[in-house]
């Protein structure tokens, strides 16, 4: 069957088997390998892309279902050499280690910030709760998203002005220790 969709702003048209999954279409037909695959059961969120601005798990979306829609992948985050603030934030705050879940995490975070430019930590944790990271323990991902929220116009290679600023006047920094105030609602 023939399908057409917009991927990172470009119109694409392909002849595919009806059963082809969106993740395989993106990776193998379009060659955009920044979208990864990690499970078969919609649990891990490694394959998250944005469909019409909403995070979807592309391992459980047929490519045919995406026809006519607007798809955004990690390759569409940066504007040329200029990184999206979320990409800069992940580098600033060590929001990634192996990098495998990172594209999906960043896209979900982008969608969150588009709707809610100043999320609190709980809102960030809820937003990424459908995705698994095996490396970071999530705290640095939360910090990365907060960094992006605090630097909406960060540019590629920018010096990251303000990175040393404490975001909230009520926070404390104890010696060499990253101490974070707990919120009783987080894991409720």
């Amino acid at each position, binding site marked *: 069957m023939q399908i057409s969709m917009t991927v990172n702003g470009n119109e694409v048209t392909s002849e595919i088997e009806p059963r082809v999954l969106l993740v395989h279409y993106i990776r193998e037909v379009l060659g955009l390998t920044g979208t990864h*695959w990690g499970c078969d059961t919609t649990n*891990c969120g490694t394959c998250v892309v944005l469909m019409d601005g909403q995070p979807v798990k592309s391992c459980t979306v047929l490519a045919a279902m995406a026809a006519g829609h607007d798809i955004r992948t*990690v390759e569409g985050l940066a504007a040329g050499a200029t990184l999206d603030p979320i990409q800069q934030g992940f*580098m600033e705050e060590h929001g990634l280690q192996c990098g495998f879940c990172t594209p999906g995490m960043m896209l979900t975070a982008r969608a969150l910030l588009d709707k809610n430019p100043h999320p609190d930590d709980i809102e*960030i944790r809820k937003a990424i709760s459908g995705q698994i990271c095996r490396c970071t323990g999530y705290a640095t991902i939360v910090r990365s998203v907060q960094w992006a929220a605090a630097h909406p116009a960060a540019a590629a290679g920018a010096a990251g002005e303000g990175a040393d600023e404490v975001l909230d006047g009520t*926070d404390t920094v104890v010696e060499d220790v990253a101490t974070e105030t707990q919120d009783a609602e987080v894991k409720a």
Partner: protein
Amino acid sequence: MTVIHERDSNPAAGDADRPVGYGRIQRKEDPRFVRGKGHYIDDLVLPGMLHGAILRAPVAHARLVSIDTTNALAHPKVLAVITGKDLEGLKLAWAPTLSADVQAVLVTDKVRFQGQEVAFVVAEDRYAARDALELIDVEYDVLPPLVDARKALDADAPVIRDEIPGRTDNKIFDWEIGNAAETEALFASADVVVRQEMVYPRVHPAPMETCGAVADFDAVNGKLTLYETTQAPHAHRTLFAIVAGIPEHKIRIVSPDIGGGFGNKVGIYPGYILAVVGSIVTGRPVKWVEDRSENLMSTSFARDYIMEGEIAATKDGKILALRTNVLADHGAFNATAQPTKTPAGFFSIFTGSYDLQAAYCKVTGVYTNKAPGGVAYACSFRVTEAVYLVERMVDILARKLDMDPAELRLKNFIKPEQFPYANKTGWVYDSGNYEAAMRKSMELAGYEDLRREQVEKRAKGELMGIGISFFTEVVGAGPRKHFDIVGLGMADGAELRVHPTGKAVVRISVQSQGQGHETTFAQIVAEELGIPPENIDVVHGDTDQTPFGLGTYGSRSTPVSGGAVALVARKVREKAKLIAAAMLETRPEDLEWEKGRWFVKGDPTAGKTIEDIAMAAHGTMTLPEGIDGNLDAEVTYDPPNLTFPFGAYICVVDIDPGTGHVKVRRFIAVDDCGTRINPMIIEGQVHGGLTDGVGMALMEIIEFDADGNNLGGSFMDYLIPTAMEVPDWETGFTVTPSPHHPIGAKGIGESATVGSPPAIVNAVVDALAPYGVVHMDMPCTPARVWEAMQGRPRPPI
């Protein structure tokens, strides 16, 4: 609330105050990852590449009666179907494991675990390969499975490895260490003895990227290029030479970016071998990437130790002796990835952080109808199990003595002046200051306040628990005279070249799976030579481009290869000194080093930078005698001892008495990994390990039903923590350098995975003290906690 916390320096590229050497800098690998430009195994596409898929056994134990591949071969997109019989003809049906056993590549006689490899299809695309699996007809004669390791040595237990001539039982090994008689004497006369059986259940590393390979065999020149998800490319090259009979100089192993490993990507799995066979058979490159169920059901699991622990102590809380008897479930093949001489890994460090008078440990390894493995998931060769045992036992003793668990630990710690400390099972701990780390952790936690809060909450019927764990790790294997894997000594090479313009490339044998080697190793060279990290390229993951070494696992990259890199940089520095002396027309002994340059003692203006020297080394000047030119060096580092990182962890949990749900409210982790190279990376390693701990303590388990069906074979069943299950980690550190390591570094990759599970379980048991609960096995799921509250603690299967 999130704190963008205090930093040692501004991390952004190009800043003048950025450290040239140790300190917080952004990772050099991140720009490609945040752009989606990493190169993982499944991203690789070679011209003419085919796709492989594995047919797996649906049952745990069965005679293979017949395989009919006719219909699969008739599929228009299928090029080959390979069975165990085909491999027998190639003498490849069985492959050696990392523990001197053999493992079936494809079943020839008998299925020994559910999910075992039965046939391999090679097709034009991945969908066709999967389709063809459905077209293979296999007839099985199902046998009774052996699922419970406790029954493995029963007289009527089915013999799993009956293909081995003369084998009549399921025992793999008996292994003991320590002094049984001295230990018994102390137990016989002790005021207090406590005993507890505890299970460290089977869990799985489950990296987000599954295992996979692309094999490309060039029939003309006989060269095999194997791209694979391996943490140990050089060891794999040698083993493939042995397994496949391909001369080692005709094998190139390339390990691309790896999407997490945690020990899952150490072993050589049948899929890798089958990709190679597929490429040889078809003459085209073959890709094989397992799916998530294959990963969880067939690749290396972790733990599965049934442990009986006993502590003897005086009534005022002086621990005298520790004894343990372990039943180790190794699955159907003994394929644990660990040093040859240690069949229970480094479990013998179960004496922990305490100054004991005697200890004794016995471990019995058995076969069961389960997937092989056992040493994985950031376990530091089973230090996870050892720390869990001793830290649970110490808490049980504290309860018995009605002592505070922190006080009991402080009373029994090895004292700083006792280092180097020889424990009772043969380890020599390099350095430590345990009390300082414990007190720092208690201070960060506000320990006394937490205990007061607990008293108040208990009075109101609320369940709050505080758990402590103090661990000593043993990592950095290891001295060649003591440690090898299948005969390969565990020393690592390193090569360093400083180019004429002063830019450098360092080549290492270890392979990052996310630990940030491209940054850390550049920082080590930078610290030693004063060349900025951004001017140092780190080459790894390709056996044709790097010196030999045993790979990344057991937290050995910094302790072993980090030592090699520091030493090779110092070798270059010494070479640079001779050249600088010639340039300055003085004697080498009259020169002094400051980071980045040699200068004349007493005359700092007369000096040569490493860049000046590099150009001279490649130029036309007459070089000192013994130097042929260039500014390169290579070394092999054979560590004189292992390193012993340690840490003090405190966990605070709240339990919902209505549902049994455990919430980790706070987790305070104070780690000591010796010299700290990049604090940001270290913190990341700790955070990740703590999350593993929450997973193992509360959620993760691979269980089996009575028929041997794997009940944890997908992410719907095998639960991994998300951002909702973990707290904001609170971290701190102390620094006690290793005295024998070139830069004093001890390794950090696995500390938190090792140290955190007992802190969490201790907190859960502490919370449940009003219900009389003394112990409960992991994972402390709501159902298990609720059952424990009803007086029915249930061990895992």
